């Protein structure tokens, strides 16, 4: 069918069209239907593209029939076809959830705007992943960022506004750094096509502008990644955003930024330069260790569950960057796997917590912060929600049988291949820190008596429970059947890692 060849374009265009359509209707119902349909279709497209890449390798789509490197090219390989599945899949799960959850969080008259912004955010994220053009990447980055700021600011708590503002400043600085870096690359190579850049960058990468480009891009993308210590914006943003937004961002936004990092480091500059000739791996390794140990330790002492799991995200991002710094097939593969596995698990946790919060919210007041005091004894009222959060937590810890275990296995294996036993220790210690914060939840939800005055006896609404549990089941599934995650991730790593170790 002729349409099949246009799937790369449709992947991005469908959500892009859904956003203005949602605004045109100006009503929550149709807006929801349109954006959800777009998200589901784009999920289907992502799967189709993944299979297509799996079967026949690279796909290139020239936008407007301008052949690369002159025109903008959408380019799909193992890595980004895998990422597309994650991003669009999360959107497909989060959207039905959002319908139930924003009811209590956002005034009804702005619902259509919420859906439009979510559609736009999805467009941006998918665009970053699929595009083969450096400047286009920046534009999509800003599309997703701007819509994200709006989405975060829609939280009912006024601190959502300051969180969004903080993120706007940090995010814009990050994006501007990226665009400066891309500018240097363009000035030096005369091209914006990432694939076309590769041979030309190889010539100039040791020059001063080349290094400056790498530095600017590194810092800029790290800001979006929330790599420790550039993570300051993340805890507030995740804590005060509407539940569905927290879940979607936690699962996709930082992951897509990490994708951009991988793309620049491994494809454009080449890992043998970035990790072989520069002291970058040491640098990244130290930052990753700080993230894994400090952020996870900070997480233990949080009182607000959403903030706790936000800090946990910073820690888990440390795992991912640690894997990248190994620059080996298993290390990079573990990182790519963990992008996916952590995204799914963390998304599930935020969805389930959001369900619990929704149940505790009355229509008049702002949603209460899910503090440990408030969720004390919650397991009696919401057994399924609590059990789901625990299972998601087990994946964060990396208990066998969950998806987190698979990525941890490869990460430890990669550390062993490097002969770095102390790193093995650090990875495992940081997963023990995860045990500590997950068990704080367990003890609060299962052992403490419910606070006086809380209504008990009601499980979270099913419309909110099902999407969360769907992701939990996915976590368990990918903990046992790894042919999709590990297969794709290791293949992608194989394509990315060149340095021959």
């Amino acid at each position, binding site marked *: 069918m002729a349409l099949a060849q246009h799937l790369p374009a449709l992947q991005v265009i469908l959500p892009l069209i859904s956003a203005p359509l949602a605004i045109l209707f100006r009503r929550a119902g149709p807006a929801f239907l349109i954006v959800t349909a777009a998200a589901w279709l784009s999920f289907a497209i992502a799967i189709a593209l993944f299979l297509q890449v799996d079967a026949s390798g690279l796909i290139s789509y020239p936008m407007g029939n301008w052949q690369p490197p002159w025109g903008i090219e959408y380019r799909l390989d193992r890595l980004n076809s895998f990422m597309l599945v994650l991003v669009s899949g999360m959107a497909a799960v989060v959207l039905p959830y959002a319908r139930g959850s924003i009811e209590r969080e956002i005034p009804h008259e702005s619902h259509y705007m919420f859906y439009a912004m979510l559609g736009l955010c999805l467009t941006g994220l998918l665009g970053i992943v699929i595009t083969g053009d450096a400047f286009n990447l920046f534009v999509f980055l800003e599309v997703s960022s701007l819509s994200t700021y709006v989405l975060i600011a829609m939280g009912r708590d006024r601190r959502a506004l300051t969180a969004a503002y903080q993120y706007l400043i940090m995010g814009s600085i990050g994006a501007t750094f990226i665009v400066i870096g891309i500018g240097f690359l363009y000035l030096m190579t005369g091209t914006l096509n990432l694939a076309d850049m590769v041979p030309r960058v190889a010539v100039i990468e040791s020059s001063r502008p080349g290094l400056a480009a790498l530095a600017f891009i590194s810092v800029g993308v790290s800001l979006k990644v929330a790599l420790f210590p550039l993570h300051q914006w993340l805890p507030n943003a995740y804590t005060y955003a509407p539940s569905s937004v927290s879940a979607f961002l936690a699962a996709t936004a930082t992951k897509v930024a990490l994708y951009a990092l991988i793309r620049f480091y491994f494809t454009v500059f080449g890992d043998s330069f970035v990790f072989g000739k520069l002291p970058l791996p040491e640098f990244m390794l130290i930052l990753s260790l700080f993230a894994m140990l400090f952020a996870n330790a900070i997480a233990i002492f949080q009182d607000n569950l959403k903030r706790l799991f936000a800090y946990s995200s910073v820690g888990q991002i440390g795992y991912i960057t640690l894997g990248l710094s190994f620059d080996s097939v298993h290390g990079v593969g573990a990182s790519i796997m963990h992008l996916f596995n952590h995204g799914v698990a963390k998304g599930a946790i935020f969805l389930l917590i959001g369900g619990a919060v929704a149940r505790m919210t009355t229509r008049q007041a702002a949603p209460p912060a899910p503090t440990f005091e408030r969720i004390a004894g919650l397991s009696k009222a919401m057994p399924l929600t609590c059990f789901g959060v625990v299972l998601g937590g*087990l994946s964060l810890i*990396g*208990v*066998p*049988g969950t998806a987190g275990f*698979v990525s941890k*296995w*490869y990460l*430890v*294996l990669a550390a*062993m*291949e490097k002969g770095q036993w102390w790193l*093995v*220790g650090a990875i*495992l*210690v940081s*997963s*023990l820190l995860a*045990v500590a914060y997950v*068990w704080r939840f367990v*003890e609060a939800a*299962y*052992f403490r008596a419910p606070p006086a005055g809380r209504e008990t006896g009601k499980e979270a609404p099913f419309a909110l429970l099902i999407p969360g549990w769907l992701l939990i089941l996915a976590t368990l599934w990918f903990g*046992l*059947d*790894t*042919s999709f995650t*590990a297969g794709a991730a290791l293949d992608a790593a194989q394509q990315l890692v060149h340095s021959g170790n």
Partner: protein
Amino acid sequence: MDSLILASLVLPVFGAAGILLAGRWPNLRESVTIVTAVATFACVVQLVEPVLAGSQPGVRLFELFSGLPVAFRVEPLGMIFALVASGLWIVSSIYSIGYMRGNGEHDQTRFYVCFALSIAAALGIAFSANLLTLFLFYEILTLITYPLVTHSRTEKAKRGGRVYLAILMGTSMLFLLPAIIYTWHVAGTTDFRVGGILPATLTPGALTALLALYMFGIGKAALMPFHRWLPAAMVAPTPVSALLHAVAVVKAGVFSVVKVVAYVFGAGVLAGQTGWLIAVAAFTILAASIVALRADNFKRRLAYSTVSQLSYIVLAAVVLTPLSTVGAALHIVSHALGKITLFFTAGAIYTAAHQTEISQFDGIGRRMPWTMTAFTIGSLSIIGIPPFVGFVSKWYILSGALSAGMLQVAAVFLLSTLLNAAYLLPIVHRAFFREPVHDDHHGEHGEAPPFMVIAVCLTAAGTLAVALFPDVLVGLAQRIVSGGGV
């Protein structure tokens, strides 16, 4: 054959689902438990004959990592462990009914569900064909027993649960997991094979480090200094302590130790490398016995006794002679039968008399003759007095140690036998030969509920029966060393 393996793993899981569904009707729920237990045991028993005959039926599920599947293979040692775990599940289900109802415990449905799932996990460990599968079920067993340990939901249970989880998860994550990954890294496989899988190129230093990671990583074997979780787990209801912390969980630990020593390292690789481990195990045996001697809380004394007895098995395994390996396998059975009897007694006394401290047991044997007789038999078996099964296993272990010329090991065994007697027999004496103290708090009481008494007598009889008819077990145990047709 494959279906039997899978059935014995899946039946308890279905049983758990059934229990959950039948939660509202206690009689139905308990029937489901017992029917499931019997059916599971029946499945396991049917596997005995082929294994005795030398075949090792196996089944491969999905591949978790490329070349590293979740797979099951029934070999003689696993067969023994599975028989013990599933067989005693029946008895302890009967016992649980008496205990849970007698004490009016809350959340009984959750209790039975977790119990059934624990058994499934234990069987998974028993049948695992490689380290990965073993680790998978090992961790599941830790997690699924956590709700049982903390069943009472009190502050004390929470603290006990913390210790339990911290030590078991901590050791398995910090030591066991890297050990397994390292094994996979250097050997390219994690399958259990007779003679070991480690390449000969490994330096002695690396080998020792790896052995240490395994031995301390398998925290369930309760080698000192990682034994504290076991006394901490005693906050659980007694059926849990009895089946899980005398049989399923701790035996999963020592079972894993024996498997790792026999099938990952292999006697040849380890020869001469295990001196320090023998010392640690010997120290654990003696130190735990001495702690047990001083404990007044009945369950605490039993717990430390368990710690000590577990190290018997570790010690027997690392002596590395065929006889001692047979002894280790048999001791898994004999200690299971003996110790479950003792724990059942503890629960019976708690239910009937609400006593937990040994100093309160004066004259209790006169009121609870059946229970305390069973206790005496169990004690004698643990001490190793013929004609009970404890004697058989100790005999093999001792002969093994002597055949290897390890006199100091033999001495440790003898010394600890004396200590066993010293911490168990005074209880018997107290129960039967002291005048009961009459206090007004508890009033008169009689025997424990019938369900419990039946269970206690069954296991006590078991210690005798197995000692008199040991053919099947000894046959299986000898299959371990004779190679079992791999």
